[in-house]
């Protein structure tokens, strides 16, 4: 037994599965078993995992919406300010704020900021770029980006106990289990 104060020598335990189905099952069981700090690794997005692991993070959408709105306001604001206040000019007898002619640029600004926020917020929320991560210490983990499916229960989880957690993983019928060094 280790006190939670000091850092566990291991990052966690990792189980490898052959098929996505097994992984989804395993993930669901793990969660029902009360584990929270665990993660699944798949070569492609497996949507069933969202339910199995109860993943419902909508912050990306929120951020994107805010970005887009700011783009719209900022865009139109720039045009209006530059045309009507910064240096008002009589251009072809058109009004200083020619709303209909300002729409295209406003729209483009909306998309630009919206799109950038979407991508950037996703990358940052995923904690990327991350130059180092313990899971890569597992020899066979390279297959996570190729053909295999992994489940890793992290030592940071309060219920984590090396032996019992190992036994628990064993019960999920993985190909094999590996300790994930820090």
């Amino acid at each position, binding site marked *: 037994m280790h006190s939670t104060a000091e850092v566990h020598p291991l990052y966690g335990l990792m189980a490898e599965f052959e098929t996505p189905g097994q992984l989804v099952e395993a993930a669901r069981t793990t969660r029902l078993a009360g584990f929270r700090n665990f993660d699944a690794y798949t070569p492609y997005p497996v949507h069933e995992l969202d339910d199995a692991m109860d993943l419902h993070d909508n912050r990306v959408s929120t951020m994107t919406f805010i970005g887009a709105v700011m783009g719209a306001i900022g865009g139109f604001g720039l045009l209006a300010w530059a045309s009507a206040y910064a240096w008002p*000019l*009589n*251009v072809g*007898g058109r009004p200083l704020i020619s709303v*209909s002619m300002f729409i295209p640029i406003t729209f483009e600004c909306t998309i630009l900021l919206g799109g950038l926020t979407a991508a950037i917020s996703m990358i940052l929320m995923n904690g990327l770029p991350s130059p180092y991560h313990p899971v890569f210490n597992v020899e066979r983990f390279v297959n996570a980006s190729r053909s295999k499916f992994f489940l890793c229960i992290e030592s940071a989880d309060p219920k984590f106990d090396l032996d019992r957690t190992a036994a628990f993983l064993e019960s999920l019928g993985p190909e094999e289990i590996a300790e994930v060094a820090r």
Partner: protein
Amino acid sequence: MTEQSDSLNLESVQKRLAQATGKSYWRSLDELFSTAGFQEFLHREFPRQAAEWIDDDGRRNFLKIMGASLALAGLTGCVKQPVEYVMPYVEEPEKLLAGKPVFYASGYPVAGLVSPILVETHDFRPTKVEGNPEHPASLGATDVPTQASVLGLYDPDRLQAVTYLDEARSYSSFMLSFLTALSQQRASAGAGICILTETVTSPTLGAQMQEVLKQFPAAKWYQWDGQGHGRRSGAELAFGQYVNPVYKFDQADVVFSIDGNFLGSGPGTVRYARDFASRRVLRGGVTTQSRFYAVEASPTSTGSKSDHRLPLKPSQIPVFTRALAAAVSGGQASGEVSTSKFFQAAVKDLLAAKGKSIVIAGEDQSAEIHALVHFMNQALENHGKTVLLTAPLEQKATDQYADLKALVADLNGGKVDLLLIIGGNPVFTAPAEFNLRGNFQKAKTRVRLGLYEDETAEVCQWRIPETHPFEQWSDGPAYDGTMSIMQPLIAPLYGGKSAHNMLAAFTDTPEKPDYLLVREYWQSKHTGADFEAWWKRAVHDGFVKGSAAAEVTATAKMPAAEAAVAGSAMEVSFHTDPYVLDGRYANNAWLQELPRPVTRLTWDNAVVMSEKTARDLDLKDEDRVELAVNGRSVWGSVWRVPGQPDGTVGVSLGYGRTRAGRAGTGAGFNANLLRSASSPTFATGVKLKNLGEKFPLAAVQHHFLMEGRAPVREGTLAEYIKDPLFVQKETETPPAGLTILPSDWQYKGYAWGMAIDLTACNGCNACVVACQAENNIAVVGKGQVLNTREMHWLRIDRYYSGDAANPRAHFQPVGCQHCENAPCEIVCPVAATVHDAEGLNNMVYNRCVGTRYCSNNCPYKVRRFNFLLYTDWDTESLKLQRNPDVTVRSRGVMEKCSFCVQRINYAKIMAEKEDRRVKDGEVITACQATCPADAIAFGDLNDPESKVSKWKREQLNYSLLGELNTRPRVTYLAEIRNPNPAVGEES
């Protein structure tokens, strides 16, 4: 400085000049000229062949060398007023402020007749020419060559050094040998001396010539000029004496022109255009027009303004004229020419308007025609009323063909030891049969005083640079004899000498300056007290008030019928070019690139023929053809022009110069080679041979039909009287509110606008050159014009309507329309073209990045783009000409008409200083100022009493493409003609 005989380079030359200053400057230059190294340098820097002007790239490269060349870099640096006391046009010359132009009254002789002008000078640099508003021959306007004269002044191709057998000499060394030659002639009373001049009209020069002939009684004085023979000899033929006809078109109800171009060029053209227009325009409720019949061997801008135009083969013109003369003098007209409706209607009108009609013959017509015309005017009782006869303007009027024959005889007789050729260019302009090139060489010593190293200079050992009229004192008459005093505006750029200096050399005061010569002449003629005051006034005004030539009474007789030349299937008629004239202005790039009113061609003359003729001969535009007349032949390019009589080709003279300079050399072909003294105006039995290849012609307009779009709205006087508003009905202009972007821009202060009266405009193009001179507009060269990249801010569109074979032609000056809803402005991504508070559509060169979107979106296509570096940054002398108030544009920026914003601002500053509004007529745009026909009005639209406001209230006023709701500030007054209903569609 003989140690310096090795080849010079520019640096060393300039270094050596830099050491010298003031008087010693000139001496060191003379010494420099005499070094062998300098020859080599001179020839290296001044290549003989200069056709590179046509190829614009080559031209610019060539200019780089030229610009750096010694004379320009060295001499133009020390431009200063001459030491004599000249009189500025403004009251207090000492008030000269930097940046404030000073105007001097002077004159510019065009083929002997002096155009009265005011020359705008900036810091003593002549930059622009305006007409002298107080002079009856100008009334403020000028003709085309006069407008272009400033460029001629700064022409870097001018002869820049005294040379002997191509070796540079000092003027003093010339004087030495010249005076020696003269002294040898004293024994024989000058029997070996022969002086060939242009037509001398300057009284001072005439007096000097008499003096010379007094000193050398046996010396010969011959005159030769490219044009005006028919006019002179015709008068002599009709009246038995030389007289000068002056026409009063403002008095004429009926005008009949026989191959005349009195609106386009020739004596009095500026005043004639004004007077003629004054009887045609229908502003201010006028509902009467004079009627104008024209017979033409080749279409001219003048004929384009006629109510009825009859194309005639040149061989038919004498026949027709005789028939007309018979008919109007109460005789019986014979021949089928007299059966046409045109003929009968014209005769009827002429007879009905006795004493109120004018019959006028073309400058290029023969003496016989001119004589017949004098006879007709007499029969129609026009003499003393619409046609005044005055004493001849020439100092010695002669039949110059006879002069030339005598000269050639002398030369062949080996009688000429010393041949002095002053001005002109006889080798080029004389008919081929005189073979002056060869015959001149029979004179032992040949001295040439000329502006250029031209075809005539080529055969002379001594070449003396002549002063440009702006560099010398002189005098001369306008078309009506009113005498102008010409004062110099700048010291001779290349140390030139005037004709006065030349003739002074014959006297015992060989070095007497032309200032004294002119002044003393007038002093000798002056009666009454205080010559000084009189002289000041005359120099100040630029002319002697009330000095018009005295009227003479003379009786014309019907000239004996000459054997009529038998017509032939193909004939050619020769016409003096309205711009380069007999070729004397061939090296003026402004004139070369100025579109000819009828052909719309630049940089070339062409073999002009009608559509039908071209079809019969299976020829297309720009086909290179050989033109052969009894043995002699030239080649030119075909250009089809409607209204040219079938079976006749028209060619203009003054082209095909072989030694004109970078602009003129190689432009066009020399039609002189086809002329003969016996029939200088036309030739029959012409053979045309298709050489089976193309020679491109640089036209600025390629489509001449209005395509039912009515850019020019026209009607007849009858239609106008029946329905004064007919113009307004052609298309509707949408209401101002009709837009998805309503705005409330208002122009409360000034609102500048322009109106152009199409009835008055005769397409002379003077406005275009004026604009070019005023606004530093670049010349682009033939290559660029071929790709429709000309830069003229103002262009004169020419359309045809009616009968395809003999259509009505319409002229329409189009510059920036300064639309209030400017399409160009909204599409510019950098706001480089925007409106100002006075409604000007401003072009901001510094901001322009050159997307050309504005030009694409301009429905009038008046914007011009610097596709390449068109402005000549290198030639020093050309820099002197530029207007300091106008930005010189560089490559990659758009430009266009600015309504002469620099003039507007000048007037506004003057007004603000006096705390008042700008008065109407204070702002005069360059085009408006120079328009001989007074077809342009400009001013403040917010002033209901301004001239332009009045014009815009006329019922004939309309907007070009108004249906696009661009709201142009420029509007047009529709063109109204006064055809004779009796003639009907047979125009």
